[in-house]
Structure formats: C-alpha cells, structure tokens
C-alpha cells in the first residue's frame, strides 16, 4: 500500500534514531515487550485451541502418555547399588521398594489379599440407594410437571392386529398437534402381546376439549391405510385418562379404531 510507505519509513527512522542516540533505557525495553507478549498470547491461543478440540487434545496427550512408558521400556533405570540400595542401611523406604524386584512385590501382595466382601456389600448398597433415589426423583418430576388436577394422559392398546400393521399415530388436542409417534416393529410386537403404551401425557385446563387421533399403517391386503378417530371430552378436576384402542372387526375384515374415556 503506497500510503503506508512514508509512515513506515518515518517509524523506522525514529526507532533507529532512538536506538543509536541513546543507551537502552526504559523506552527501549518497552519496545521489546510487545513481541514477547505476542509470543505468550500465541502460546495461550494454541493451548486453548488444543483444549477446545478433543481430537487434538487426544493426539497431543497420546505421545505424552506414551513417552514415559516407552522411556521405561527402552531405558529401564538401573537401581544404583551405592545410591539407595545399600544393604542394611536405613535408607528411604520408597527407594528400596522401588528397587525391589517385581517378584517380591507380587508375593507380598499375595500374602495379604484384601477382603473385598465388605466393599462389595457397600457397592451393592450404594447401587440400591441410587435406584431408590432415581424412583423418588421420577415420582417428584411427574408430580411437578403434570399435577393431578390438570393431567391428561393418552394410552394406546392393540388387539390382535391381523388387519392393521401400525406404523404411526398422530395426536391432536384442540386442533394442535401434540405428538406424532412412530412405532417400531418391536413396539408393535409388544403391543400385540398385550402391552399398553403411554403415548402422551400433558396438562389441560378444566372444560371441554377435542381429541383427534390419526392412525397410519398397512391395512388389509398390505395397502397403506390411514384412519382417524375423534372424541370430545370434558376435563374436570382430577387426572383424565384416555385410551386409543385398535381392534380387529372380524365380521367386516377391517380394523376398528376407538377412543375410550376412562372415567
């Protein structure tokens, strides 16, 4: 850039003049600080980048972790006989233990096997505590998120299922989609074995509401099949439970979809 040249020249001239005319004073020392600060900041940035990227951090840590092991394998430090391994001398116990052959250490460990039965019982007790705590938290979460006064829960059950292979259920409450659930073959199998799936749980105000459920899947003759069912229900004080039921109507060789209100 042309406009920068005179400026740069004057900057250099001033600097050389200052360096030539005066001995190194605080100003000159101050001149050296910015590059050092820059190097320091660069080092911090590199460390920051390494820490922020786990892959790089792993790559950086791997050689660091491997180096001591490799060092030991390649260059086993000989225990200096004169330094700390003098027989009978009350030398530091650590160094003598380190200098002891591994076989001796192993026999010492075998001689006094630690009793782990108590520890195992403690671990089992802790596990039980965790399970209990998890159950309590679950109950508390349910009570807080879905208080009984406003709770509405929708379940889905399936009977036989010869005429309908369930794929998904879309649920709308008061014309607002609340869930669109895809059923996997395993889930369908569980439903056909008598399982009941809690499809939705939420909160509703007291009053009249409309529930619409769309069932998608494969119907008779393996054709795409989509049907809907509607229910208008009154939500009172207390929890409301509704059940979507898929039945086979043998007489018509068609599936039947209904919504049952559990009073």
């Amino acid at each position, binding site marked *: 850039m042309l406009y920068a040249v005179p400026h740069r020249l004057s*900057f250099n001239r001033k600097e050389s003049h200052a360096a030539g005319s005066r001995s190194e004073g605080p100003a000159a020392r101050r001149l050296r600080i910015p*590059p050092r600060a820059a190097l320091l900041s660069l080092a911090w940035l590199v460390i920051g980048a390494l820490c922020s*990227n*786990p892959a790089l951090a792993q790559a950086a840590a791997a050689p660091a972790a491997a180096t001591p092991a490799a060092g030991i394998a390649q260059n086993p430090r000989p225990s200096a006989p004169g330094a700390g391994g003098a027989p009978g001398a009350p030398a530091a116990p650590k160094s003598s233990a380190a200098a002891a052959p591994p076989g001796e250490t192993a026999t010492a460990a075998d001689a006094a096997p630690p009793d782990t039965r108590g520890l195992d019982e403690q671990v089992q007790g802790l596990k039980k505590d965790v399970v209990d705590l998890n159950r309590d938290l679950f109950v508390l979460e349910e009570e807080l998120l879905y208080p009984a006064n406003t709770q509405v829960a929708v379940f889905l059950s399936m009977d036989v299922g010869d005429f309908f292979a369930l794929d998904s259920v879309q649920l709308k409450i008061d014309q607002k989609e609340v869930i669109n659930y895809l059923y996997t073959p*395993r889930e369908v199998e569980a439903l056909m074995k008598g399982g009941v799936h809690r499809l939705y749980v939420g909160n509703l105000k007291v009053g009249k509401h409309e529930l619409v459920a769309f069932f998608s899947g494969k119907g008779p003759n393996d054709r795409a099949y989509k049907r809907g069912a509607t229910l208008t229900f009154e939500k009172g004080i207390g929890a409301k439970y509704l059940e979507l039921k898929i039945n086979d109507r043998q007489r018509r060789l068609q599936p039947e979809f209904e919504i049952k209100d559990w009073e």
Partner: protein
Amino acid sequence: MSFQRPTGALVRRSCAGWLVAFALGAAVAFAAGPTYELLGHEAPDFALHAVSGGNVRLSEHRGEVVVLSFWGSRCPPCREQLAALDKSLATYRSAGLQVYGINVDDDQSRALDFAHGEAVSFALLLDPEKNVSRSYQVDNLPMTVLIDRSGVVRYVMRDYNAKAQDLYRQQVRVLLNE
C-alpha cells in the same frame, strides 16, 4: 513520578504483535476443525422411517455399537462411504455393529431413487424434516457418528477418504472391544 505516554509507533507495534498472535491462533484453531459438542454426551434419540419400510428407533439399539452416516443423493463421496460401511457391517455385524444411513435430501424421491440403486444391507432412513440432522449438528456430508454400547457419542468424522476409513475401522474396533 514521571509518566511517559506511549508513542504512536509503540502502540502500532504492540497492536501488530497482538494481531499476528491472534491470526496465528485463529489459524491453529481453524486447522483443528470445529468442535463437536455431542462428543462424550448421550446420543439424541430419534425414530425415523426406513426406505425399506418400518421405523427405526435409536434407543432400541442400546448394547450395540451404532454408526450413523448422514448422506445426500448429490454427494459422490457418500456413495463410496455407504459401500465401505456396508463392507464393515458385513465383517462386524456378529460382534454387535449396527449401521444406519440417514438421508438429508429435501426431495425424498431423489433419496428413494438413490437408495434403490444402492445395494446396501443396512437400513437407509429418511429425515425429511431434518430434525435428526439438526440434533446431530450435521454440517458436512458425508458425516459419520459413532455411538458406543451405552449410547454415548464417541467419535465423529466429517469427511470420507482412505485415511478416514482406516481411522473409522480402528474406532469401530475400539468400541466393539469395550
């Protein structure tokens, strides 16, 4: 006490030093690639339609090593990667490996054409609303996410080449041996 104000030259020099440091740091950070926030976290659960029919839910595969490959029909490396994943699945399926290809195309017919043309033995899933792609922060195709037996995202690969393929095999072996 005398206070000497820094001259303009000094300020300029210090600024230049900082700028150089910042630029080098930024270059190092860029070379390292963007971080993947899901690494070490539980993989977001999903249920998607498969091209071959039926639905797949990720949480049903706890206890298995799951590989999710996000692909698009306009991505030539995706085709190569799907073939490579199919080979690895044939090798490691008995050890508990599951592979799913998740399509991110807007046009499902393209995805279906592509899927029917490819003879892969694993399920190709459709994600037309991109909910799963968003939750897995897909920013490049092909992108492969490796999930361990406990449902935690352990590795991610944002590219496909021979080197990446070797790394992928190593990572899959590590996860299968756990």
